């Protein structure tokens, strides 16, 4: 009886110590939904990384060993849902590190709330709109985990350059969603095209649209050289199909979305020029880290590897957990977010991608440009931005 009482006392007094040895990582991404391409793979990759860290016994910072507790919520791409989840993470779960969001409309909704916690946590998200807030007052909590489109090393800038050189395009039709994500792409690419002497036409559509015939016909009447559509596969499958079936467009230029819609219509497409953070089908054969990641994924999830979605693991995903842990080790702390952020911004990490951050906290990583011609002939160009 006395032994039992002592065991209880030891267990009760031991609990607070055990709780301190856990680092909570929150995640607010669209795991399902129309925009799940921006969130599904991040959630898959991060969960795999957490499992690997914990199975290896955790990680050591100072004298203590820590495990990772992942609190991942499916926002379905809904800004309201993301706000609720973020509030729970910061106020109830006391998480100091949050991965996501990848969607701009989600980020602009949560930002007013998040900045109240400036200096108390780090938000590492890939949303394009985050770029506009990096380095601004009350936004030290922000790190953007994706390449920026514009600027001399921007992937969009490099792709537009290649487009002009390789296709001689003079006029581009842009067809984007009438939301934050679509509008930020308009803001970025209209001046980029103008700089290169390319004329643009723009049409916006409401999210949820399925029949694009009217806007495609309207854009095609302007006789542009190619179509620059949307950012979400949910719309791209319909747009590319209807564009080719209606004989409106057979050449496409994409800086978001996957190769999937192109492959599905490969016999009807003349040229499909797409930014792919990594062309996994090829990288698997040439890069051991990628091959291991794919094998680990299959073993962990017991299903086929999603090659078409995997490129989006370039944001707030597998590599980023290991970067964060390394930053904690260098900072000698798991909760001094300012020091951890400083270490993150100072490092270059060589994982699935070679990643570093610029002085404002925006990620720079190497990427692929994939070009698919009629019949599915694919050529891949790897761009090293380091």
């Amino acid at each position, binding site marked *: 009886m006395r032994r039992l009482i002592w065991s209880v006392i030891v267990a009760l007094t031991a609990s607070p110590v055990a709780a301190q040895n856990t680092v909570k990582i929150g995640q607010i991404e669209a795991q399902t939904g129309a925009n799940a391409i921006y969130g599904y793979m991040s959630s898959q990759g991060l969960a795999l990384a957490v499992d690997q860290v914990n199975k290896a016994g955790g990680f050591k910072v100072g004298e203590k060993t820590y495990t990772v507790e992942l609190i991942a919520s499916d926002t379905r791409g809904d800004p309201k849902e993301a706000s609720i989840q973020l509030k729970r993470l910061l106020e109830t779960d006391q998480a100091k590190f949050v991965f996501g969001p990848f969607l701009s409309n989600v980020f602009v909704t949560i930002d007013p709330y998040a900045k109240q916690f400036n200096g108390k946590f780090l938000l590492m998200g890939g949303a394009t709109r985050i770029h506009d807030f990096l380095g601004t007052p009350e936004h030290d909590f922000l790190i953007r985990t994706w390449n920026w489109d514009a600027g001399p090393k921007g992937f969009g800038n490099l792709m537009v350059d290649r487009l002009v050189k390789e296709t001689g395009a003079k006029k581009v039709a842009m067809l984007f969603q009438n939301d934050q994500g679509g509008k930020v792409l308009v803001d970025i690419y209209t001046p980029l095209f103008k700089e290169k002497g390319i004329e643009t036409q723009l049409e916006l559509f409401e999210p949820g649209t*399925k029949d694009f*015939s009217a806007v495609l016909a309207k854009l095609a009447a302007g006789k542009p050289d190619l179509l620059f559509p949307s950012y979400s596969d949910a719309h791209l499958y319909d747009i590319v199909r209807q564009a080719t079936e209606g004989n409106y467009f057979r050449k496409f230029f994409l800086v978001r979305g996957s190769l999937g819609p192109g492959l599905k219509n490969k016999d009807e497409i003349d040229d499909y020029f797409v930014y792919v953070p990594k062309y996994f089908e090829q990288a698997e054969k040439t890069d051991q880290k990628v091959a291991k990641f794919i094998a680990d994924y299959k073993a962990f999830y017991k299903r086929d590897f999603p090659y078409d979605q995997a490129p989006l693991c370039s944001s707030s995903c597998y590599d980023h957990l290991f970067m964060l842990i390394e930053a904690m080790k260098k900072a000698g702390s798991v909760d001094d977010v300012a020091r951890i952020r400083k270490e993150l911004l100072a490092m270059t990490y060589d994982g699935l991608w070679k990643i570093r951050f610029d002085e404002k906290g925006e990620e720079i990583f190497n990427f692929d440009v994939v070009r698919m011609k009629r019949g599915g002939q694919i050529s891949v160009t790897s761009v090293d931005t380091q």
Partner: protein
Amino acid sequence: MLQLLVGQTLNGVIVGTLYGIIALGVTLTFGITGIVNFALGEFMMIGAYVTWYLFDVAGLPYPVAIFPATAIAAGCGFVADQLLFRFTRNNLINGLLVSIGLISIIEAAALLLWTTTPKDMGYVLSGAVRLGGVSVPKMKLVVFALLAAVMFLTYAALSRTWIGRAAYAYSQNPEAAMLMGVRTEVLQSGVVVYSTALAGFGGALYASLYSLEPAMGGLYILKGIEAAILGGIGSLIGALAGGIILGVTEAVGSIYLPGAFRDAYGLIFVVAILLYQPSGLFGAER
């Protein structure tokens, strides 16, 4: 420009028949049961997903997959009628509330089964037909032909068969119809089931053209109701005409005005027509 106009008019007619099949379900249900079934869009979604599953996952040929998809939608409609709608006959508010509640239930079930990530069915019939300078996808022509045929057959059945005459009689004077031996309970349940079958059939054809999401039904029920009101509640030809007019207005409107507000053009047209003809284009004056 003329080519653009002709092409989009054709496209609007085809898309309008999808609106029209839902409008037909709305008008039939309202005429016989006295309620507006807002959940018809969800039965369309059921038909679409079942078709996708049978064609893409189970590997059935598409013409075969349509029949069980329509039957399952109709079966769900029968269950909904027996458990819910039969208690709301001729009570517009209760029927509305029940059908709105049913939307949440069906959508939640779809989310559990298939998540919100869109499903893109394999192509049934790819390629397009050139009509003058206009390309019309072959599958859209097939969808149009099938929907129009079903709507005309429905009209023919209602105007030339005993059950059709019974339905008209009931819609004009329920008590008299009952006295004449019309089994009203059977008639009402039959109409609910048939309207959900129409929606399921529409969904099966929709799946051959567009990607699927659990929330897809919401847009189509709104369009269906708009079309039914525009054509005149109670008019079967009005349902088809209303759908086509709505589809053409949206398509042609998008040529001249920003495509982002496409949904508004049809609505503005509906309001404009109702100001001059409150009972709709083919509706009877009361």
